[in-house]
């Protein structure tokens, strides 16, 4: 009991004054964020505000320049030992990434592989799961996202919504402790958004820790435990979505919401 609560006390993701710049442009200017286990966190804000960059820093697809970023109590990309920060090797970073699922705006399914192979390849090649076990798990996950009938199809034969659901299954196949969604419905036709959000809601109910960059305010209000509003690389406002999204205190959030709602 005490051990469990001790683990529970460490947030899944913690960012302290995280900064990132590309070629002189400061994208993140000291971002603080806490994501607790089992919670859904939505990042909202205008384009170019740094939402996606923050998400990509969390699984080290981008390297942050300053500040501390911890996932599961571990520094991302570094190891603190004897008062020094040791940069992690590529191999160690790969292991870390394999425990964090990521879903992209453009789906990024492997075009040359069938739906089933897309969901098994990570399990077999990265986690060294036996092919049979991987197929069993892949079929379970495809059934969960409602695509068990499509396992032999290639991604190009699926609609955007179906592809994104396969992408979610592919990420879940790695048994991640954390799921990152980078504008998962932005590239979809409006009538296909619902089927992807339904899968995400189901996932949230199952207790998955999720960070979602989104423009779907309805989803944020309904599912998120916490909403962060980013603007120009800083967090302008954060808190309970029902409060933040209905009675915003900052002028920037007010004007942003008036545009998207």
């Amino acid at each position, binding site marked *: 009991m005490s051990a469990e609560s001790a683990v529970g006390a460490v947030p899944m993701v913690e960012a302290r004054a995280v900064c990132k710049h590309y070629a002189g442009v400061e994208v993140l200017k000291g971002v603080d964020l806490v994501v607790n286990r089992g919670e859904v966190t939505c990042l909202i804000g205008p384009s170019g505000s740094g939402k996606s960059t923050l998400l990509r820093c969390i*699984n080290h*697809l981008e390297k942050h320049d300053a500040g501390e970023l911890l996932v599961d109590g571990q520094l991302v990309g570094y190891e603190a030992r004897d008062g020094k920060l040791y940069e992690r090797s*590529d*191999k160690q970073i*790969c*292991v*870390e*990434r*394999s*425990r*964090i*699922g*990521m879903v*992209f705006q*453009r789906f*990024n*399914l*492997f*075009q*040359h*592989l*069938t739906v089933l192979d897309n969901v098994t*390849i*990570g399990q077999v*090649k*990265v*986690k060294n799961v036996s092919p049979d076990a991987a197929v069993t798990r892949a079929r379970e996950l495809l059934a969960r996202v409602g695509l068990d009938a499509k396992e032999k199809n*290639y*991604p*190009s*034969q699926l609609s955007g919504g179906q592809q994104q659901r396969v*992408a979610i299954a*592919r*990420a879940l196949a*790695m048994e991640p402790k954390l799921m990152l969604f980078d504008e998962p419905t932005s590239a979809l036709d409006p009538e296909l958004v619902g089927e992807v959000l339904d899968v995400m809601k189901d996932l949230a109910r199952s207790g998955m820790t999720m960070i979602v960059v989104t423009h779907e305010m309805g989803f944020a209000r309904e599912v998120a435990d916490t909403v962060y509003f980013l603007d120009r690389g800083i967090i302008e406002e954060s808190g309970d979505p029902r409060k933040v999204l209905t009675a915003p205190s900052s002028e920037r959030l007010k004007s942003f919401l008036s545009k998207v709602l």
Partner: protein
Amino acid sequence: MKVVPVRHTGRWIAGAVMVVIVAMLVHTLFSKVATGQTSCHTVSGVRSCHPVVNWRFSWNIVFHYFTSSEILHGLVLTIELTILAMLIGIVLGITIAIMRLSPNRLLSSTAWSYTWFFRGTPVYVQLLFWFNISAIYQSLSIGIPFLHVTFLHIDAVSLFTPFRAALIGLGLNEGAYMSEIARSGLIAVDEGQFEAASSLGMTRGQTLRLVVLPQAMRVIIPPTGNEVISMLKTTSLASAISVVEVLGAAQNIYAANYEVMPLLITASIWYLIITTVLSIGQFYLERHFARGAQRTPPPTPIARLRTDVKGIVAKFRTPRPAMTREVVA
């Protein structure tokens, strides 16, 4: 109302011209010429003479040498040289392309220099160079530079036989061209595929091998097929460094009997036959690697022929309906 189709007069004229040209070509290919000799026979006491004629293209000599053992041996050598040089070229090309795209500046500039050097000098010169390499290196040894430590020591003359010199020359040269083809293929794969693979925890090597290269293949295969066909014909240069491949064999034969043209034709026909076989292979290979890229794979030539025949048959079977247009009053 009766519909009168457009008359394509131009198409008919062009078709007729082509038919005449093809007929002329066939005629000259199979024409006969007088040899200037006459042959005389005496049949039941009557002596009759007539001029001796021969195929202009000496098809009888072509036919005679077509499957002779010298030519067939040469053919085997041509095929061996093509396959092995292409294998060296492809492996080298992909390696160099990956080096070229590496974030390590030392690797990428080495790769660039390789391509610059081997693409910038004629392949014929390179073949002569490897053939004569023993002039500057009597022996080859592998060791540590500037220190007198050697691990391996080989005599250059026995190492660089004409065949091996040709193989190395063609392979290294091909590597330079293949690297550019492979690089274009790797660049063509969407950046998102790299990101998706790394987000699953794949290493850079796994990402390249499992995700990027298979997709790059779709772009790499068509020009590579072109390179194979080009290589097949480039191997004829090896005859200049005394490799007796199919052209070398033909040259050896006509050096003895002066039948230059028929033997060049013999070699050419063999090149055409192999090119045809390679083109068919290329089609199926492209079809295989296109999976996932197109919703429906392109039909095979046999399938296409079948639909063509069906279409033509259907056209003749069903009488063309008199097209009518309802006139709304």
